[in-house]
């Protein structure tokens, strides 16, 4: 039996990777992938706790998160395509029309 802490550490590493990628990358698609990484890091901790405590609520939460992530991917990718078509770039720093 793999101890709970292993899962949690892996979950933390995944989340930290996601955060780091989100913060340092400029490409919108990479950022998008980093967000997915963070979501999945969290998902991992949910299922790990669910298995450890034998509570189904954690599993249910993961389904919700996956549904939301799928919806987000659909909408987000559509936006990214729209952005690319109008701005011809995927660099977030150049998508700054609303900035003063």
């Amino acid at each position, binding site marked *: 039996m793999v101890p709970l802490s292993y899962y949690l550490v892996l979950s933390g590493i995944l989340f930290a990777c996601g*955060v780091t990628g*989100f*913060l*340092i990358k*400029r490409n919108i698609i990479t950022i998008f992938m980093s967000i997915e990484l963070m979501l999945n890091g969290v998902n991992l901790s949910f299922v790990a706790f669910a298995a450890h405590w034998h509570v189904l609520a954690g599993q249910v939460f993961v389904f919700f998160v996956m549904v939301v992530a799928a919806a987000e991917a659909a909408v987000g990718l559509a936006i990214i395509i729209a952005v690319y078509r109008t701005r011809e770039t995927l660099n*977030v*720093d150049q998508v*700054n029309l*609303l*900035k*003063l």
Partner: protein
Amino acid sequence: MNPNLNLWLIPVLPLAGAAINGFLGKKSSRTAVSTIGLVFPGAAFLWAVTAAWRALSMPLPYQEYLAHWIRSGSFVVDFAFYLDHLSLVMMLVVTGVGFLIHIYSVGYMWDDPSYYRFFTYLNLFMFFMLTLVLANNYLLMFIGWEGVGLASYLLIGFWFTKDSAASAGKKAFIVNRIGDFGFLIGLFLIIQHFQSLNFVQVFEKVSPMATETSGAGLLTAIGILLMVGACGKSAQIPLYVWLPDAMEGPTPVSALIHAATMVTAGVYMVSRSHVIFEHAPTALTVVAIIGTLTALFAATIGVTQTDIKKVLAYSTVSQLGYMFIACGVGAFSAGIFHLMTHAFFKGLLFLGAGSVIHSVGGEQDMRKMGGLRTYIPVTFTVMLIATAAIAGIPPLAGFWSKDEILWKAYQANPAYWVIGAITAFITSFYMFRLLFMTFLGDYKGIQVDDHGQAHTTHGHGDHGHGEPHESPWVMLGPLVVLAILSLVGGLVGIRNGFEHFLDPVFGSEFPKAIAEAGNTEWLLMGISVLFSFTGLVLAYVLYVSKPYLPGKIAASLGAFYNAVLNKYYVDEIYAKLFVKPLIDGSTTVLWQGVDRKVIDDSINNAADGAQHVSDNVRHMQSGNLRSYAGWIACGAAVVIAYMVWLGVGR
């Protein structure tokens, strides 16, 4: 039930005149302005006479409630009026003399460009003065007190484009504030200890209190504080300095405000508070000493002045001193008697001086007059009457009242009498000096071409003056009426008639003295009359028959003469002692120190700091998505670290 006298009309009528002239006068003709400016005070005078006539047949004091003002628990101050024999006399003097001076002003101020403004202020003054006189409580009296101060300020600085007039107005206002400070503290003490400002209630509570024969108690403190207020308003030592400067105002103003009415407000206030003063002999002594010193001090300055109005100003200060001597020895009715006769003859003297100034085209220096008797005979006659009256030559008004005061002063303390009699001699001397310098000898004035300057500064520029000419009858009329009053006004004092009239207010003082008023009184009267004539003769010798003598005497007196000529350097001493330190202190400490360094700097620094901090913090909100994410991550990290620390701590 008493009939209603509608006293409130008396002050309100001039107020209405002031309002109409103030709001509409600028675009109205001079005739309209004069009509409004005369009708309202005239109506007030008529109403005052009617009220006085009706009041005499009913029990006095009469009180009239107009409206309520301050009601805080048991402490009540109302707009209410109080009429007893004292306020009745004051009311008649103020409205009567005031109305005459209004008439005179029509002639004197006719060519002034701000004609309507003059009458507005003059009517406003009448309103406040009558409020002061008729109030039934100290607070309403104080409103009038401050109001006349305001009117005085406005009228002294009437020709405000002249620097000296503007600063004289300021000086009068500021010096009066010092006196008002004492007055106010006196009122606070009264409120604290008697829970009322109503004359009747306060005096009811004071009456049963023990007389503070030795040492100083509450009543002494109140008395002295009230006297400080009176010193300011009535130009007594040490606060008299504003009155001579107040002569910068138009001459009718000097006559009305700075001779006949406003400056006597202090005497009226002290007399009104006689119950308090009678219970505080120490305060009374202070009043008497201040009065005596002022009378002598101002009279000596009057001897050396050459400006005709300045002589009269110092004479006013000196005569007010007499009134305070009377109050100080407890002879309040004698003080009020002198107040009344003084209003007649000093009002007349000022108006006469105005007529003289008018006739010589704005010149005020007596050395440039002389010989005017033949040019302006009517003015000369009335001035002669007034001078004889103030000098105390029987049977004119001043003789009766001054003699009354001197007699009462003698009974209290012969020292007062000695100084008073010497002052009477000096008074007679400088008044006849004024008369002789102005009217006898040869005319030394300049002819028409040279005094264009004097014209414009005094506001009647378009008169053609070939040689001195008599004033119009609108000015001479009031002079004649006042001259008649100065002639016969004192006769009410025969056999103490005036005193008995005021007995209901002051009680009959000196009952024993009246009984034994025999040889001593006649002797003293004889001496003071002798003094008056000596003054007359001396003035005649020095200024008519041997005009070279005054210069020699002045030279032989040397430094003393210079000191008197420069008014004992009092203005300079005040400037060094009070004004300069105050200005310097205000400039360096209050302005540069507190205002600039503390208040301004703290506000500026706070604003600068806020700008600086915001400028730095602004960079947090860059609009850059990833930097926001970074801040969120940092925040999350801090929260997690805190939770971990909590966990460890447990």
